[in-house]
């Protein structure tokens, strides 16, 4: 048996697959040229991409980074790359990037917005990533006050007095139901802090400041600008609009006529009005209602308007999530004997929010980009600053470089938000 010559005794040498079935060639055949239509599409797109890149890449590459005016830029580019070359003048960014980031914030205090931003990342981490122990959530709750204090400066007693207002609301919500019933305590939890903030907190903070001075150098709102301002308005709007939106969405479905009417009225009014109109109201109209001399900070006014605007939209997004829940979920919650708040907190909201994540995040992204509208009412956000920078004779005529830089800043933030939302969706996916 051993000398049967037609039986191979050793394995054939492994052969490379045909060139059309491997590597880049196969990939191209499968993805780029699988059919005539696909091939035409590939070639046309390739030509288009080449045409775009052919004009952008040299513009980027043959750029000037060290000049001090547009004229110098042009000279430097002509000198290095030959007469008639079109190149980007990124010198404007190297010279003014700190203004685009911080506005007219005093340069020796730049550490404060930077620290506030780093703390912001630390404070949002426990909220965004459940892997981090929840005991750090306390820090996240305190962050808004710390952040505002760092950026605006001034007396430490002001944020402390503001925190006390929230403590009042918490105390009313926890201890009062036994005394005056649950509806009474909800009303008290809203009214008490409002009375404190509007009527008392200012004078108490002043008094405490006189007794125990605790203050850092305050920075005037007019000097706060640039990307710092966009982030401030955006983050405030984002963090406040979600809870307010949830409450509004719940209120809209409420059986209590007054609550329902107020919520529907608010949502429909705000959604019926363009954001820019609200910003004009914030910047001009509100001044007429207040006695001259009372300067209610313009940035605060804008933040409030942006938050209200975002909340109305958020309410509708969440209402969509609530509507998508099968009625059985509500009934099951009732059958378990949960009261309204427990059912909402434990059963309804987690599911409704999960359904709404993509919409919520795209609302956030839209809101963040809408912050550039404040340049129309004269606030110095990056777009406003680009006008101001162009008003210098040295940089007059520069457009693309500034906008490219601003676009890059916004893209980084918005793209991160979008990636996070996809991560969250994957993580919360329970379907199989």
């Amino acid at each position, binding site marked *: 048996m051993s000398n049967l010559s037609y039986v191979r005794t050793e394995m054939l040498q492994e052969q490379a697959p045909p060139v059309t079935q491997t590597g880049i060639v196969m990939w191209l055949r499968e993805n780029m040229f699988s059919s005539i239509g696909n091939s035409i599409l590939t070639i046309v797109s390739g030509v288009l991409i080449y045409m775009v890149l052919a004009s952008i890449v040299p513009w980027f590459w043959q750029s000037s980074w060290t000049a001090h005016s547009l004229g110098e830029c042009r000279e430097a580019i002509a000198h290095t790359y030959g007469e008639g070359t079109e190149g980007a003048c990124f010198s404007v960014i190297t010279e003014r990037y700190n203004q685009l980031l911080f506005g007219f914030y005093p340069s020796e205090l730049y550490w404060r917005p930077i620290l506030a931003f780093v703390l912001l990342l630390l404070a949002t981490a426990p909220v965004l990533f459940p892997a981090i122990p929840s005991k750090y959530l306390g820090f996240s709750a305190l962050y808004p006050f710390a952040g505002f204090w760092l950026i605006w400066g001034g007396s430490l007693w002001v944020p402390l007095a503001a925190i006390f207002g929230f403590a009042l609301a918490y105390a009313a919500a926890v201890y009062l139901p036994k005394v005056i019933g649950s509806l009474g305590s909800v009303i008290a939890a809203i009214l008490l802090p409002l009375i404190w903030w509007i009527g008392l907190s200012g004078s108490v903070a002043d008094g405490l400041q006189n007794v125990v001075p605790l203050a850092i150098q305050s920075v005037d709102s007019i000097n706060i600008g640039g990307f710092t301002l966009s982030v401030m308005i955006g983050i405030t709007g984002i963090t406040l609009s979600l809870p307010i939106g949830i409450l509004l969405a719940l209120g809209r479905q409420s059986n209590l006529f007054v609550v329902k009417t107020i919520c529907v009225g608010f949502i429909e009014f705000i959604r019926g009005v363009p954001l820019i109109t609200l910003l004009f109201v914030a910047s001009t109209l509100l001044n007429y209602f207040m006695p001259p001399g009372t300067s209610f900070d313009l940035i605060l006014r804008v933040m409030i308007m942006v938050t209200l605007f975002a909340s109305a939209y958020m309410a509708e997004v969440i209402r969509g999530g609530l509507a998508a829940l099968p009625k059985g979920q509500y009934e099951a919650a009732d059958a378990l004997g949960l009261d309204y708040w427990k059912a909402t907190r434990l059963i309804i909201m987690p599911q409704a929010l999960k359904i709404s994540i993509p919409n919520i995040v795209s609302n956030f992204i839209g809101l963040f980009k809408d912050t550039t509208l404040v340049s129309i009412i004269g606030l110095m956000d990056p777009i406003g600053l680009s006008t101001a920078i162009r008003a210098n*004779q040295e940089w007059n005529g520069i457009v693309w470089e500034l906008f490219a830089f601003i676009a890059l800043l916004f893209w980084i933030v918005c793209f991160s938000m979008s990636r996070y939302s996809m991560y969250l969706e994957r993580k919360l996916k329970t379907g199989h």
Partner: protein
Amino acid sequence: MKKTIVLGTLAAVGLTAGMASAGTLDDVKAKGELACGVSTGLVGFAAPDANGEWAGFDVSVCRAVAAAVLGDPTAIKFVPLTGKTRFTALASGEVDVLARNTTWTFSRDVDLKFTFVGVNYYDGQGFMVPKALGVSSATELDGATICIQTGTTTELNLADYFRSNGMSYEPVPIETNAESQQNYLAGACDVYTTDASGLAATRATFENPDDHMLLPEIVSKEPLGPLVRHGDDQWGDIVRWTLNALITAEELGVTSANLAEKSAGTDNPEINRLLGSEGNLGEMLGLDAAWAARAIAAGGNYGEIFEANIGESTAIGLSRGLNAQWTQGGLIYSPPFR
């Protein structure tokens, strides 16, 4: 009981409102800084430099007022205002003086209830065309496409001019000056029209300014000047006479270089009255005797401010033209200091 509280509060608010608007001068002194409304950025007239310091032709007016009133040309809070927010900001008291190249018109003065304290720049609407277009006068622009900024008097002036000359045009409406520049350079329109000072500043930024020219016609009157609220004449007088002091200083040859020497007293009684070594003009205004000297020290006299910000030595390169002193054939004219 409750009603009384509400009414009482309202009355108190009304009272404080009345008090606050009674004396802008006292308010400014109490705050220690002048709130000055400026443009969000206009070449030569108002722009922040790399350190966030504002400079420009309009800004200099505010610096002079701050120097006269507070003794410190840097004690200013600059509030950048857009064309849409400027008037409400002034009316509501957010700014004490608005120096934002604002055209003095009847309705702004009368209907919006502002006081224009004078004119610091006589502008007018002009046209810029590429030389390749082969046009030498605005009367040859029949059928042209024209880039205009929307919502400004520019738009209305243009329509008036073309109608009265029996010509037609195609407007390309555009929101900002930067967009206009890009559109004009890209050939989206044959002609760009805005205030002549703006055209000169824009042309100076072009890669090849010599390929473009300003047409000789000026089709509108745009007297630009600082303004204050109606109802506080003392404050209006202070801003008006600070501007006049700068103009008179140029007329009388008082410059930032010889200011100290002339302040000590000269043979010219008007210089002496202006600089406070004679008479009591400062006192009449509610200020001290050296107010005008400080205003002039802030940035020089009118001519020096013009030269430093928009004059022929700068890239904008505007000639004095209408803005020369009346003695030189221009319109800049201050009533006497007497």
